[in-house]
């Protein structure tokens, strides 16, 4: 991972909430440890219940036990199910089989592309360092949708506005943990100050390595990664793309200064080029 100078648009960022929040509380987030996920979908249900998220289709997808499909406007937690013919831990049986389950969620990026590109200011950074849409301001331009490198945020059909996980902004304000973390029966979803979670995650991955699970790895924990580190970390048992996650996402606005420069040069070239075609005599 290359290191960059401190920068507003990418790289490590110790105080995410310092933008506009005087004396913010500690930044909070999720640590989702997929090694203890049992695929019960209690998180999906709790999220729907608490946030009054509408029904998102009752389809059978044929993707193992996953009938949610993906995160979206009306699915703010999504449990992925992956069936693999690989051994799980010390399993001795034939055929070898393991069933991976993982509850995905908005990453509440340190450098959140959705927030950067939102033209209305509807997406904002809360005092907890999370990223939230203000539904009374969103005009449904849909720009945040292709900007998110994880494919999280989406416009809701028939409503037009963009929706995603709020990390239960209302519950945080009342000193409660988010509904999904509260409901998770195995502590696969852990909530807390992000610094603590990073420590817990590092300890857990070490513990798993020591007990012979070399596949265990962390995802989103590195503040030097392409989004400045995620506010929602994961412990995965395979490559990120197996779970539908991008292996090395980069916030698109990292390159925005270069884009504006090129646009400036292109505009100047257009002006001078089209002025030049008028050179010479009239005919």
């Amino acid at each position, binding site marked *: 991972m290359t290191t960059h100078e401190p920068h507003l648009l990418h790289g490590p960022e110790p105080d995410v909430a310092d933008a506009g929040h005087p004396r913010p509380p500690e930044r909070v987030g999720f640590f989702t440890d997929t090694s203890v996920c049992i695929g019960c979908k209690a998180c999906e249900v709790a999220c729907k219940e608490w946030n009054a998220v509408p029904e998102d289709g009752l389809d059978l997808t044929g993707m193992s036990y996953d009938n949610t499909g993906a995160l979206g406007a009306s699915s703010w937690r999504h449990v992925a199910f992956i069936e693999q013919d690989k051994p799980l831990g010390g399993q001795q049986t034939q055929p070898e089989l393991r069933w991976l389950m993982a509850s995905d969620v908005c990453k509440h990026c340190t450098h959140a592309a959705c927030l950067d590109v*939102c*033209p209305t200011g509807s997406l904002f950074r809360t005092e907890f360092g999370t990223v939230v849409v203000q539904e009374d301001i*969103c005009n449904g331009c849909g720009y945040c949708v*292709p900007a998110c490198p994880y*494919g999280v945020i989406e416009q809701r059909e028939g409503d037009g506005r963009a929706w995603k996980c709020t990390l239960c902004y209302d519950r945080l304000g009342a000193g409660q943990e988010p509904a999904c973390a509260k409901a998770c029966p195995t502590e696969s979803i852990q909530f807390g100050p992000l610094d603590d979670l990073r420590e817990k995650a590092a300890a857990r991955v070490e513990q798993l390595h020591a007990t012979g699970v070399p596949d265990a790895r962390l995802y989103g924990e590195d503040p030097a990664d392409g989004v400045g580190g995620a506010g929602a970390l994961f412990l995965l048992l395979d490559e990120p793309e*197996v779970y539908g996650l991008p292996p090395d996402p980069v916030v*698109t606005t990292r*390159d925005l200064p270069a884009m504006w420069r090129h646009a400036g040069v292109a505009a100047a*070239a257009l002006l001078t080029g089209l002025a030049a*075609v008028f050179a010479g005599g009239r005919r």
Partner: protein
Amino acid sequence: MSGAEVTRAGLRGERPGSEALFGNGMNGGPGGGPDGGPAGGRRRGAREAEFTSYYGRPVLKVPHWAATDIAGYLFLGGLAGAGSVLAAGAELTGRRGTARAMKLSSLGAVSLSAAALIHDLGRPERFLNMLRVFKPTSPMSIGSWLLVGYGPLAGAAAAADVTGRFPRAGRAAACGAAVFGPAVAAYTGVLIADTAVPAWHEGHRELPYLFTGSAAAAAAGMALLTGPLPENRPARRAAVLGTAAELAAMHALRRRTGMIAETYRQGTAGRLLRAAEVLGTAGAAGAALLSGRSRRAATLSGAALLAASVCTRFGLFHAGLASARDPKYTVEPQRSRPGGVGRTG
């Protein structure tokens, strides 16, 4: 396993769920260390060979934008912006017919483009929320403000020309529109490049040039189509210049984007971009060689240039959608990026 015991006093020594254990090492078995036991080795081998995804589903969300609205917006913005430069040039060099035609064209194009943009909002009645903030990190915010600056100037220039009133103010407005116009044409490249969509983002260096080239060619086409024949020398030159810039930028784009360039060649996008090349080349050649003398050649060349620009914008729009839909365009470039994650495990 976990060392927990059920005693008369209840459960003892239980482990919280988050510390549940599994794996080779927990029974004192041989165990594969983090440096790769048999499982790790096999996984790496298998992984090199094939690309994996979650049931072939896209990693990104494909934008909900309608092609006619957004690709149409890209085309119209370019036509309007570059057209204003041609209008001002024609005005200042006494080409009255071309000046009026291009002012009207720019006004029409910018009005239609604003309508397309508003139409595509999930909540069109909230369009004015675009102007709540001025946000340099959001190309759409900058673009909205550009349109607010440019639109009235283009309108005033056209109105003054048609009514013949306030000629000085009209000329000033035409010159103002000529300064804002190129920014309107160029920013649309940033608009689509500032996303995670591989075929757009990876082209962020070339897209502004590609779009201004395409805009110049479109405006030249409109000038050939609507301007009087004796006045059309600048338009013929602009047609060649714009098309050459567009072709060069497209070439650079294809070379630089690696495997993502497939999306410019395949499917709907491929057909449109090939059509753009053929139409653009034919239009520019017709403009350069025949359109000085023949009205029919000028009309045909102009129409071909406009069509080429439409095809370019729609082609790139569809390439973006295709690259977002197939997870391999997201995953593989991230894997092979220099200094990137590579294959871990």
